[in-house]
């Protein structure tokens, strides 16, 4: 079997046809991990023994003719999603030894399929970052060019799939954390409609923004994975009722004014060339006005830190995770948090504390929420006339390790085109669309499509065309 070319769809066929077993497949990935992950560092922990057991159980189901779409498929899980009895650290010191008390709903759904869990993947601590350099446990390298970051925060998941260390992976996307690493590693990443996939058992970061989604090699695989993990869950109060996927039309809007600055020229050229190919294939491509989009990143960097500062108050050294001894309970809190959180997490907690503080909450937090409504209204209006909106996934390709890590604003700008979908709650996909050359290496560039709420169907049909035409 050629893991570089293997997809979920093909693995399903081959497993059911008994061309290879789930154990063979799992062993092939474990061998790749043993050979290559020392360099890539996609994984924080590999579960070889339990993976083989799960593979054998999957083989028994397959032999009995009881396979489901993901039975025996070896996947990786981002380190902020809970699997009962397993460490889930969010790549942080504060939860370094935290063992999950229960299964996330997405994990329950995957267990019902008898998937094979290969391990947990590296990420930016608590999903804050765009390079995976904010992990407390070392950086992940991009399999395409190991001097570069894989993107983030789901960088370990993206690198695992792109480096043939897993057939698919789970990630979470608060402002681009699935799509941007997918773009930088040359794979497909889906940010799902807000409420479509249960967040029960996902460590919350920005609760009005967070969504779980898959990272896979093809659009078809993304659909297969999404169909397994989506669905209403009474344990997530923001979960929405089940919905049917509709196919997409052929009318795409491009908020051209938003692309005037900040995009690297050859990345913009890949984006425009993709639009041209779609046009040649019968699509209507039109420039549209979405006047409030340029405010997306500023709005995001008010709302996200505000929600971070409240959500991360739970890590206090009392109920779980690190706890540093001190004379008073107040000192237990401040020492545990000061020692257990990394610098980006501390920065966001403090920004969030500021924008929520008395005297500033009106000018920052409430204003940001109001402008967010304007952004949502821009999307709503656009989707009355268009089936999808296209933007680059990220303004540039994967950058060098160390290049932006000491410049928070430069790092935040990585998400300029991806935070929009999270603010509006709409689904968005990044599909590989071409390459740009840096220092003699061709680096992948993703093409981002956004659709109306519950519009993943449109993303899959148009995304498949992008894939076919690229």
């Amino acid at each position, binding site marked *: 079997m050629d893991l570089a070319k293997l997809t979920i769809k093909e693995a399903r066929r081959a497993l059911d046809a008994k061309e290879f077993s789930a154990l063979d497949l799992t062993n092939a990935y474990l061998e790749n991990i043993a050979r290559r992950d020392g360099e890539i560092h996609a994984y924080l922990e590999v579960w070889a023994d339990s993976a083989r057991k799960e593979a054998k159980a999957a083989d028994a189901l397959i032999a009995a003719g009881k396979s489901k779409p993901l039975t025996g498929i070896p996947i990786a899980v981002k380190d902020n999603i809970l699997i009962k009895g397993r460490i889930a650290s969010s790549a942080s010191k504060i939860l370094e030894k935290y063992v999950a008390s229960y299964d996330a709903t997405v994990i329950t759904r995957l267990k019902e399929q008898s998937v094979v869990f290969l391990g947990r993947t590296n990420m930016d601590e608590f999903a804050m970052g765009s390079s995976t350099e904010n992990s407390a446990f070392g950086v992940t390298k991009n399999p395409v060019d190991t001097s570069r970051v894989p993107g983030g925060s789901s960088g370990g998941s993206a690198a695992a799939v792109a480096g043939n260390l897993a057939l698919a992976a789970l990630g979470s996307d608060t402002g681009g954390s699935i799509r941007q690493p997918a773009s930088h590693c040359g794979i497909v990443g889906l940010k799902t409609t807000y409420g479509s996939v249960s967040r029960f058992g996902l460590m919350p970061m920005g609760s009005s923004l967070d969504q779980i989604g898959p990272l896979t090699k093809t659009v078809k695989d993304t659909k297969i994975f999404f169909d397994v993990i989506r669905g209403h869950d009474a344990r997530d109060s923001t979960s929405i009722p089940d919905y049917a996927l509709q196919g997409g039309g052929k009318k795409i809007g491009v908020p051209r004014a938003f692309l005037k600055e900040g995009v690297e020229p050859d990345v913009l050229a890949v984006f425009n060339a993709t639009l041209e190919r779609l046009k040649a294939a019968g699509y209507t491509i039109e420039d549209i006005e979405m006047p409030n989009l340029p405010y997306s990143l500023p709005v995001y960097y008010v709302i996200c830190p505000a929600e971070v500062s409240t959500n991360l108050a739970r890590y*206090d050294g009392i109920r779980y995770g690190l706890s540093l001894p001190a004379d*008073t*309970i107040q000192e*237990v809190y401040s020492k545990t948090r000061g020692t257990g959180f990394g610098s980006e997490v*501390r920065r966001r907690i403090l920004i969030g504390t500021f924008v929520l503080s008395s005297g500033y909450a009106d000018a920052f937090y409430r204003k940001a929420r109001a402008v*967010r*409504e304007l952004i949502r209204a821009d999307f709503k209006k656009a989707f009355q006339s268009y089936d999808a909106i296209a933007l680059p996934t990220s303004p540039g390709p994967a950058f060098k390790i160390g290049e932006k890590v000491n410049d928070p604003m430069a790092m935040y700008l990585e998400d300029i085109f991806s935070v929009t979908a999270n603010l509006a709650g709409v689904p968005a996909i990044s599909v590989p669309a071409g390459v740009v050359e840096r220092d003699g290496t061709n680096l992948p560039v993703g093409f981002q499509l956004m659709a109306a709420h519950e519009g993943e169907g449109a993303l899959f049909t148009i995304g498949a065309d992008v894939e076919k035409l690229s």
Partner: protein
Amino acid sequence: MKDISVDVEALAKLAKLEVSPEELSRLGKEIPDILRFVETIQEVSENVPQGDVAHRNVMREDADPHETGLYTKDLLDAAPAQKDGRIVVKQVLKKK
């Protein structure tokens, strides 16, 4: 645009976060830079929708509780210190 003064030390205290003097001085520069960037939202006209229709807190019904004690052990086992089915914490209130 008016200058934003940020007392990082006070914020850190509010957030119950120990921050070293070196980091305080670095954040004292970084946080205002970030706030100046996000402050561009002030340019947006006041003609914005009032109230938050799309985003509101969603609560579950306060009903149908699970059986008492069903998850107690699992959850307590995650705590740094436990005793007799409770989480142990430092004394919060002191007698004068």
